[in-house]
């Protein structure tokens, strides 16, 4: 019972630290990017695409698509889809919001596993 109690206290304290501590990213998303994030969820983009390697496997990881491709390229994909991706019939505003979201995800860090350093104790460090 004591072990159970101690573990629960540690768990809830750990959870509280995560909820209330300073955020790891420098800036929150702007309102347009926040709108883009909701569209990302409403269209279920994560079924096929990943952010930081988390998500589906049918399409590429889009964390840093803003820096690896041009804004025009992103908009062309969003407008027409691809032979695999359906045309979601997004409005101009929705495309702007999604592009702003990709700009924001790009600003939070680098997802490519190539860019990480590996250490002898098995840990890795961010670029």
């Amino acid at each position, binding site marked *: 019972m004591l072990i159970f109690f101690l573990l629960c206290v540690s768990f809830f304290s750990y959870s509280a630290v995560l909820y209330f501590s300073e955020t*790891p990213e420098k800036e929150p998303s702007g309102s347009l990017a926040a709108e883009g994030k909701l569209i990302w969820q409403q269209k279920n983009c*994560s079924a096929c695409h990943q952010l930081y*390697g988390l998500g589906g496997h049918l399409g*590429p990881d889009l964390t840093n698509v803003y820096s690896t491709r041009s804004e025009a390229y992103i908009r062309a994909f969003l407008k027409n889809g691809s032979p695999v991706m359906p045309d979601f019939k997004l409005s101009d505003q929705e495309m702007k919001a999604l592009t702003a979201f990709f700009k924001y995800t790009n600003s939070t860090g680098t997802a490519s596993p190539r860019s990480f350093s590996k250490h002898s104790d098995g840990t890795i460090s961010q670029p």
Partner: protein
Amino acid sequence: MLSALLFGLTAALQYIAPGFWRNTFSFEKLRPLHVSSAVFWIILAAIGTVLSYLQQHNQQPLKNLRLVSIQYYLFIVSFTAVLISYCFGIFGGREYWEFHPVFAIPIVTAWLFFIINFFVNISFAQKQPVYIWMWITGITFFLFTYLESNLWLIPSIRNHLVKDMTIQWKSYGSIVGSWNMLIYGSSIFLMDKIAGNRKYSFSKIGFGLYFLGLFNLMFNWGHHIYTLPTYGFVKNIGYLVSMTEIFLLGRIIFLWKQSLNTAKKHIHLQPFKFLIAADVWIFLTLGLAIAMSIPALNLYMHGTHVIVAHTMGATIGINSMILLAFVYDLLDDTCQSLNSFRKLIHKGYWLLNISLFFFWISLIIAGFIKSYWQMNQPDVAFGSMMLTLKPWMYLFYFAGTGLATGFAIVLYPVIRNKIMCYFQRRQKPASTLEALKAA
């Protein structure tokens, strides 16, 4: 479960015929239909088993059957509504819980009823076996972690991507640990039932392993997000805690011979056969999980199909095999003897496990190819890399078909038995306990 298999096979077609049903039933609809069906199968079967075994533990029917019915219908209606909403392209949640957040209300309400049902049927006057502790843990932590997975609804969390993803994967890691507590607790109950004594349920090692499981449920989720630029301490805690799983792996190897002897003794029992299969899958999945928990190795596997292989090993190889053991224990031959189906079940069992092995291997190989591309071929386009995976995706699809067929074969006799029970009950009402056992 049948809908999980059906939608899984249809979704998997997209890997060998990209763009299939692109404009009608595309992947963003099929994947959540498959995933949510599988999650609902696990949750509903786990709840049904806990309530059924609770009656056997207490040796009396549940106290409030009306509440059990309300809970049951709330789950069924909300889960069905979720699947229908996917067909219409209505989403709003995140990966694994893609449904609109409004569905969280009936799901949480039904879970609260489950909690009430459980606690009114439990007595704390005497020392309880470890499986009761595991059920208590699973039931309460599921509610907490499910609510936690909805914290993205608060704008201050949602608008900080990295923090939001950290909390999202914290909740996912713990929620899986929670339903595992329900399933593993029930498997300990079943093992005791087969062995005919309750030595393990009250043993020090039983409680020791329970606390190790609880410790991992709470703190081991960090390995999901090693590449996310989140708090360093989350990753370090995740790495250290994950390594305690080596103890479990070592124990399986150490007790291998003893397990084989026990298996020989009980192999004629259908539920035991599924528990043995689950044991083998625990060994394979745990080995992969430990490798994935080392950050430097995780880097090569993260974002690849190796992670999918791990998930499939855990949900099909471990969870579903154990749940099938419960299905055979609870629904076995209540209304019709299964003797005439023994050979069919045997064939289905082997088809299921061999197909799962090839399914698992095909994903691991596809994952290694993608990993090589991620680490070494920055100039090769994503689409070109996907083409190189094609042969393994064919194996994945055909093994998946074998897997679905194996499941259908092993489920057929028990579903038939259930239908027989339904018609027999219409002729002669069963006792409350029998009726619940059959349900």
